[in-house]
C-alpha cells in the first residue's frame, strides 16, 4: 500500500532567500503530525507548496500513490487535501453557505443553495461547529471563522487537513474546542498536519512531530519519546532563552496617563505608566490592541477620554505634534505602515522626522544631513544593507525592524508604544529589539509593549495587562504573576 503522504527534497527560494532547503516529510492516515518551527523557519512555505499555492523549485510529492506536480489548489482539493490558512481564506462580504459553495463542484452549476444550507447545518451539528448557514462571515468572531474553514474541509470530504498556525488568533477556550474537533477528525481516519510554534499544543494533541529550523528539518520524534526541552532545542538550536536579568523598576514619576479613553473598538480604558516602567499588554489579537496603539499614536481619534504625557494633554494632538512631544510608535504592520518598502533605508529612517534637522532645512531637504544621519544610524543599530540607498524591500525582516527601532528610539522618546515589535523575527533580531527596548526603559521612558506572544510579554514587562473585549481584563505585577489567572483573563473573564 502506498504511503498516505510523502514529500521528498522540497526546495523553494524567494529571491535570495531559501525558505525550504531539501525538506522531507511523511504522514500516515489517522495521524496528527505537528510541524514545529520558529517564525520564518519555512513551515508555511512547505505547506503552500504541498497545497499547490506556490510551486517548488525542486522535490517531489506523492499523495496516496498520486504524484503531485504543477498542481494548483483546485487539483489538491479535488484529490482530498484541504488547507486552513493562518489568515483565513474567506470572503467576508459573503455568507457562510456562499463561502462553502465557492469553488465546490457539488454546489452545482446553478447553485443548490437550500440543499447546501442543509448540509452546513448537519455538518455543523455533527462536529459541534455551531454555525448558521446564512450568517455573514464579516459578523463572525475569529474563532467561528476558523470553523467555517474546517466546515469547508469536512464537507468536501478532505482526507488530509493542513492547519497553519490555527491557534494564533484564538483564546485559550477556543483552542481547547479546536483540539477537540481535531481529535474527532482523527478518529474518522483523517490525516492532519498541525503547524505551530507553540510547544504545549503539540504535546497535547499530536502523535508525532517534525521540527524545521532555518529551512531544513532539524529533528523529529514521536510524542511521548521526547521532552519539551528537547523539542525547544530542535526549534531554536540551543536551550530556550533564559529569562532576562531583571533590574528592579526605577520608580519614576507617571509619564503616560490614560483616562477613560474610548474609540470605536476600544475602551473605556484607564491606566498609567511611570518613567522607567514597561507595561506589557498580552491577549489574543483583535481585542482592541490595534485600536489602543493607534489611538495613543494619534492615528485614530478618541471618542472620549484623555491622554496626558508628562502632565500635558495630548488627547487631540496630531501625529506630528505627538512625535515632537516625545511619543514613539512601532506599528505591528511593518510592510506598509512602519516602512515604505520601495523607499531607501535613508528615506525610511527620516520617515517621521523629514521636516526636522538634520533632514529638513527650512523648505528643503538636506542631502548631507540625510547622508550622515543614515550612515550613523545604520552603524549604531547594526542595519545590514548595501548602503543607505538600498530599498527597504531588499532587507530581511530583522533589518527592516531595526530601521524602525533606529528611527523611533534615536529620538530619545518619553513614551514608546511598541506593537508586535518582535513578531516573526529570528532569535537574534528578537533579542536585539528587546534589548533596545529595555535600554530605553533604563533611560526613563514609559513603555507600552503590546504583543500576542505571552512569553515575550512575561519576559520584558514590569507590569502585565491582559486585553480582552476592548479593555484590560486584568493587570498584575510581573513578579509573582499567576499564569493560570492570565489565561482566564485572556479568555475574556474579568478578574
Amino acid at each position: 500500500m502506498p504511503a498516505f503522504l510523502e514529500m521528498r527534497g522540497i526546495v523553494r527560494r524567494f529571491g535570495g532567500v531559501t525558505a525550504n532547503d531539501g525538506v522531507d516529510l511523511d504522514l500516515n492516515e489517522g495521524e496528527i503530525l505537528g510541524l514545529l518551527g520558529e517564525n520564518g523557519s519555512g513551515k508555511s512555505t512547505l505547506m503552500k507548496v504541498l497545497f499547490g499555492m506556490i510551486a517548488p523549485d525542486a522535490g517531489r510529492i506523492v499523495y496516496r500513490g498520486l504524484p503531485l506536480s504543477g498542481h494548483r489548489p483546485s487539483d489538491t482539493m479535488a484529490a482530498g487535501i484541504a488547507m486552513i490558512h493562518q489568515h483565513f481564506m474567506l470572503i467576508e462580504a459573503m455568507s457562510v453557505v456562499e463561502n462553502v459553495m465557492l469553488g465546490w463542484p457539488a454546489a452545482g452549476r446553478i447553485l443548490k443553495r437550500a440543499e447546501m444550507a442543509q448540509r452546513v447545518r448537519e455538518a455543523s451539528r455533527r462536529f459541534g461547529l455551531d454555525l448558521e448557514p446564512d450568517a455573514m462571515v464579516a459578523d463572525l468572531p475569529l474563532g467561528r471563522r476558523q470553523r467555517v474553514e474546517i466546515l469547508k474541509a469536512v464537507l468536501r470530504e478532505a482526507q488530509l487537513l493542513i492547519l497553519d498556525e490555527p491557534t494564533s488568533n484564538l483564546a485559550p477556550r477556543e483552542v481547547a474546542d479546536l483540539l477537540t474537533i481535531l481529535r474527532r477528525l482523527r478518529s474518522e481516519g483523517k490525516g492532519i498536519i498541525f503547524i505551530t510554534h507553540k510547544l504545549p499544543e503539540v504535546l497535547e494533541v499530536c502523535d508525532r512531530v517534525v521540527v524545521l529550523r532555518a529551512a531544513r528539518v532539524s529533528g523529529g520524534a514521536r510524542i511521548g519519546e521526547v521532552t519539551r526541552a528537547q523539542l525547544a532545542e530542535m526549534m531554536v538550536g540551543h536551550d530556550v532563552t533564559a529569562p532576562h536579568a531583571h533590574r528592579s523598576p526605577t520608580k519614576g514619576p507617571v509619564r503616560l496617563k490614560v483616562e477613560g479613553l474610548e474609540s470605536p473598538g476600544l475602551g473605556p480604558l484607564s491606566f498609567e505608566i511611570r518613567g522607567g516602567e514597561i507595561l506589557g499588554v498580552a491577549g489574543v489579537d483583535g481585542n482592541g490592541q490595534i485600536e489602543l496603539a493607534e489611538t495613543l499614536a494619534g492615528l485614530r481619534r478618541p471618542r472620549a477620554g484623555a491622554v496626558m504625557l508628562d502632565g500635558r494633554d495630548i488627547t487631540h494632538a496630531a501625529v506630528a505634534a505627538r512625535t515632537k512631544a516625545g511619543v514613539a510608535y512601532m506599528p505591528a504592520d511593518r510592510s506598509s505602515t512602519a516602512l515604505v518598502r520601495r523607499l531607501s533605508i535613508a528615506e525610511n529612517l527620516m520617515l517621521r522626522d523629514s521636516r526636522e534637522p538634520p533632514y529638513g532645512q527650512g523648505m528643503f531637504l538636506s542631502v548631507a544631513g540625510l547622508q550622515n544621519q543614515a550612515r550613523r544610524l545604520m552603524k549604531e543599530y547594526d542595519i545590514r544593507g548595501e548602503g543607505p540607498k538600498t530599498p527597504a524591500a531588499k532587507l530581511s525582516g530583522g533589518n527592516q525592524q531595526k530601521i524602525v527601532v533606529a528611527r523611533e528610539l534615536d529620538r530619545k522618546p518619553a513614551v514608546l508604544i511598541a506593537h508586535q515589535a518582535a513578531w516573526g523575527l529570528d532569535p537574534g533580531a528578537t533579542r536585539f529589539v528587546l534589548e533596545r527596548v529595555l535600554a530605553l526603559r533604563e533611560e526613563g521612558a514609559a513603555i507600552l509593549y503590546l504583543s500576542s506572544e505571552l512569553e515575550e510579554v512575561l519576559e520584558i514587562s514590569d507590569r502585565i495587562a491582559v486585553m480582552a473585549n476592548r479593555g484590560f481584563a486584568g493587570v498584575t505585577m510581573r513578579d509573582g504573576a499567576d499564569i493560570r489567572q492570565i489565561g482566564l483573563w485572556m479568555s475574556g473573564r474579568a478578574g
Partner: protein
Amino acid sequence: MIDFLAAAIRIATPLLLAALGGILSERAGVFAVGLEGMMLMGAFASIVGAWAAHSALAGVLLALVGGATIGVVIAIVTVRFRADNMVTGLTANILAAGLTSYLLRALAGGGRPIAIHLTPLPPWPIPKLDQIPVVGPLLFSLPPLTYLAIVGCIGLHAFLLRTRTGLTLRATGENPEAAFASGAEPMRVRVLAVVACGAIAGLGGAVLSLQQVGTFTDGMTGGRGYLALASLIVARWNPIGAALACLAFGAAEAFELRLQGFGVPVSSYIVQMAPYVIALAVLAGLGRSSRMPASIGQPLQWD
C-alpha cells in the same frame, strides 16, 4: 408622455448594455474605465460588418468581437501586466478613438471618411402584447437590441446570485487570494470577465450606430461609456439598479430634448450637463456608503 418615456428608454439602452458589461468587469475586480472605447469599437465594427455583409446579424456579431478586442487589450495590460486599471482604461479609449477614426478613412483609401448609411433597425413588436395601452408601445414594440438589454439585465442578476460561476466571479472581486485557495483561477476569471465586458459594451455601441442612427461618426459615443460607468457605481454594482440609473439619465436627456423642442429659454449646454451633474450629486450623496468590491483595482499578487 409616452413619447417622453420611449425617448428615455431609447437613450438608456446603450448605457444599460455598457453598464451591464461594466458590472461584470468590476465585480471581478477590474475598473471598467474602458467602456467608452469598447462601445466605440462595437459601434464601428457593427456598422462596417452590417454594411460589408449586408446583414444586421453580422453587424451585431462583429460588435461583440470589436468590443471584446478592446477587452482583450485591457485584460492583458491590467491583469497580466498589473497596470493601473484607470489609466489603462483611458488609454484603451484613446486607442479605440484613433483606430476607428483611422480605419473609417483607410476603408475609403484616403483622407475622407467612408460614408456608410444604413436603415436603423426597426422595432420588433410582439404580437398581441404591443396592443396593450401605454405598456404595449413602451415595452413590447422595441428594437431587437433593446429587448436584449432587458433580458441581459435580468440574466446578469441571476448569473451573479444563482450560479457557481457568478459566485466565483464575485469572490474574485472581493478577495482573489481566498478565491484561489478555494480552487478558482482569479487570473482566468478576471480576463474572461473583462473580455465579456467588452463584448457586451460593444453591443451597447451597436445600439447607437446600427439600431439608432444607421451610420458611424468619429467619437459617436460622446462620453456615454463614462456615463454608464457612473450609472453602475450609482447602482452599487447591481444590474437592476443600473437599469434604473440608466433610465434616470435617459429621462434627463429626453427632458433636455423636450425643452429644446418647446423653445424654452434654457441653454441646451446647461441642460446637457444634467447627467454628469446628477451622477456627481448621487455619488456625493452616497459618499462612503457605496461599498466597492473589496479588491477592485488591485493587481493579483502571486505567481
